């Protein structure tokens, strides 16, 4: 009979007790959980503002909120979701937890800086929350000048300070990851044996390091303009608002790659595991991650096609925008090719991976319409853009995040989530998501502008569909929050490697001990190599097939 896994006696969760042992921890695994709590909190904040937007847009005549209040809703939705949820989510939670485990290290290179990065996030978040409750923010998350620096009557200064501070959390995390991946790999863990999740976070960290300081100085200059009357972007003094946009988007475009690269890293872990097959084209996927990071810095002006900028510059940036799609496409082809000939199972993480594949594809392709100069004239600043980036951010990044949370939940908590409930929640999420955002493509194409509190009545039916979808989506999000929390305490004991998967993190108990590994592992196998891993207990010749008695047990329903 299959062996029932035992819950380890001592692990990182019960090693020490008390609030101080959590708030002063330097254990990367505990810090990941601290981030999980705070990031989820901000997800609720962003979700609340999303709900307000969708409720207001049920009617075309701006019945629920005033124009100013509506501006505040979409602004704060964007700020909360982008800076406090999407950017930190996968790196600070899954990256923090898993990277040392995946490379065979005891911790990150700088554990105290890791803790500092969480506190910096909290301080930045506090400033931004303060702004939200003392007048809100109505400038759009893009803080375009001179509205944000001169004319806005909302609480711009504390928000700008808050985001400035939170940027340092990003920088410290990225710095920690880069140094760790360079200097802390276990013996035998060469660069090309690293899981692609690690490669993805390496690329993400490069973007964080090179881009975040620019938004820091940009918001710093905007803050100085607002608070001290200094002149950089204010036309009254001769300053240039377009300069603000250049500086702002130099970071904010690469920021979207900070949001998606880690999710792609998750997908690169999920698909080989649930197709039980080596990832197709490992080197190409690793190179594509770096290519996305680098080319992503060369395209920012595509957010500014309608500002009256140089046509020649616009042409160059449009071309580069098309170029940046290529490495993403390479990855998508490679993930798909991995499925071919694999032994596919439809566990919840895999459902999220499939969702990612389809929705990221749609989001990415619609980016091409936006990157094309001619069509962008018509669809810029419409709901087409809104739909495009939500397909990538929600359909892509959030699906990756949830898939990763489910996949690694047994490692983090030692217990399995309820599989059937999770599958139903994933389906609800998928349906809700598409109902929310697909109509927005149509709305944008038909001409409904974004950031307007009223719209022509003929668009109402699509808006109602979108709001209905949003309520279904909300259920899709609430369910995992509830059952994952439940599972952490009462779920079935998972064992070291319930899937089984090939990463180094699965060779240590679930939950792991504080020092991660009893002895430093020595790596002698390639990544995702199901064939040469007898320790996984799979059918030897093919690496396929159902678990047989005596092997590592499945999680109950295979």
């Amino acid at each position, binding site marked *: 009979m299959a062996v029932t896994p035992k819950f380890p006696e001592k692990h990182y969760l019960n090693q020490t007790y008390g609030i101080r042992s959590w708030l002063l921890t330097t254990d990367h695994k505990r810090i990941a959980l601290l981030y999980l709590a705070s990031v989820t909190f901000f997800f609720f904040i962003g979700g609340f503002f999303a709900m307000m937007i969708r409720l207001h847009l049920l009617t075309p005549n701006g019945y629920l909120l005033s124009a100013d209040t509506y501006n505040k809703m979409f602004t704060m939705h964007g700020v909360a979701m982008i800076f406090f949820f999407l950017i930190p989510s996968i790196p600070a939670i899954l990256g923090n937890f898993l990277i040392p485990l995946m490379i065979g290290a005891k911790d990150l290179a700088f554990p105290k800086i890791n803790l500092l990065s969480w506190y910096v996030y909290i301080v930045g978040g506090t400033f931004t929350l303060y702004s939200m409750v003392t007048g809100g923010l109505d400038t759009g998350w893009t803080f375009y000048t001179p509205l944000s620096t001169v004319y806005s009557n909302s609480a711009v200064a504390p928000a700008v300070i808050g985001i400035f501070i939170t940027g340092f959390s990003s920088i410290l995390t990225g710095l920690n990851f880069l140094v760790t991946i360079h200097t802390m790999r276990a013996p035998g863990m060469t660069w090309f044996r690293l899981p692609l999740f690690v490669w993805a976070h390496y690329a993400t960290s490069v973007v964080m390091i090179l881009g975040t300081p620019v938004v820091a100085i940009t918001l710093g200059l905007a803050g100085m303009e607002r608070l001290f009357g200094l002149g950089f972007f204010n036309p009254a003094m001769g300053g240039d608002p377009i*300069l603000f946009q250049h500086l702002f988007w130099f970071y904010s475009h690469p920021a979207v790659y900070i949001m998606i690269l880690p999710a792609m890293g998750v997908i690169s872990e999920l698909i080989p595991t649930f197709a039980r097959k080596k990832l197709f084209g490992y080197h190409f996927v690793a190179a594509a991650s770096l290519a996305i990071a680098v080319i992503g810095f060369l395209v920012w*002006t595509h957010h500014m096609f309608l500002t009256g900028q140089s046509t*020649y510059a616009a042409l160059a940036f449009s071309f580069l925008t098309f170029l940046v799609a290529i490495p993403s496409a390479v990855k998508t082809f490679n993930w798909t090719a991995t499925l071919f000939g694999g032994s596919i199972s439809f566990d919840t993480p895999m459902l999220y991976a499939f969702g990612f594949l389809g929705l990221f594809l749609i989001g990415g392709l619609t980016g091409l319409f936006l990157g094309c100069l001619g069509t962008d004239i018509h669809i810029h600043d419409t709901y087409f853009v809104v739909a495009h980036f939500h397909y990538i951010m929600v359909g892509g990044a959030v699906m990756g995040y949830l898939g990763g949370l489910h996949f690694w939940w047994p490692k983090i908590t030692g217990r399995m989530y309820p599989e059937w409930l999770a599958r139903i929640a994933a389906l609800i999420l998928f349906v809700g998501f598409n109902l929310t955002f697909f109509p927005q493509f149509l709305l944008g194409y038909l001409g409904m502008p974004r950031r307007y509190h009223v719209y022509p009545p003929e668009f109402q039916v699509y808006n109602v569909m979108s709001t209905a979808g949003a309520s279904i989506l909300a259920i899709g999000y609430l369910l995992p929050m509830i059952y994952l929390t439940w599972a952490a305490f009462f779920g079935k004991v998972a064992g070291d490697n319930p899937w089984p998967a090939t990463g180094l993190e699965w060779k240590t108990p679930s939950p792991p001990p504080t020092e991660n590994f009893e002895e430093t592992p020595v790596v002698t196998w390639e990544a995702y190599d199901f064939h040469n891993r007898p320790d996984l207990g799979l059918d030897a010749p093919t690496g396929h097939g159902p678990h047989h008695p005596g092997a590592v047990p499945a999680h109950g329903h295979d």
Partner: protein
Amino acid sequence: MSHEPEHSYTEHIVAPHVYLAIILTLVALTAITVWAAFIDLGRFNIVVALVIATTKASLVVLYFMHAKYSHRRTQLVIVAGIFWLALLLFMTLSDYISRIDYRGVRFPMTQNVDTRPVLRG
């Protein structure tokens, strides 16, 4: 290789006389840059100033910061940083300098005329 640095690395200790030579060079270059500022070179004043400043900065990076004696990896990080700064500066400037006169709207960067409305004197 795993966690060891890329090659066996023994720390290179730079001798004080090297530092002395560098600081004297830096002071001399400072004097030169001030002297050059008083000569009318038109457009090239800024070029000369930046070239001298970059020379000074390079000396500090190479010798005071030991970049000359560091890992390849460190040198790559330095080059990447400088390259990215150049990217920021030049790609943004490329927008400004390539704007052309269109339907009577003239851009200050190319035509050296300020046409922005003045709201306050």
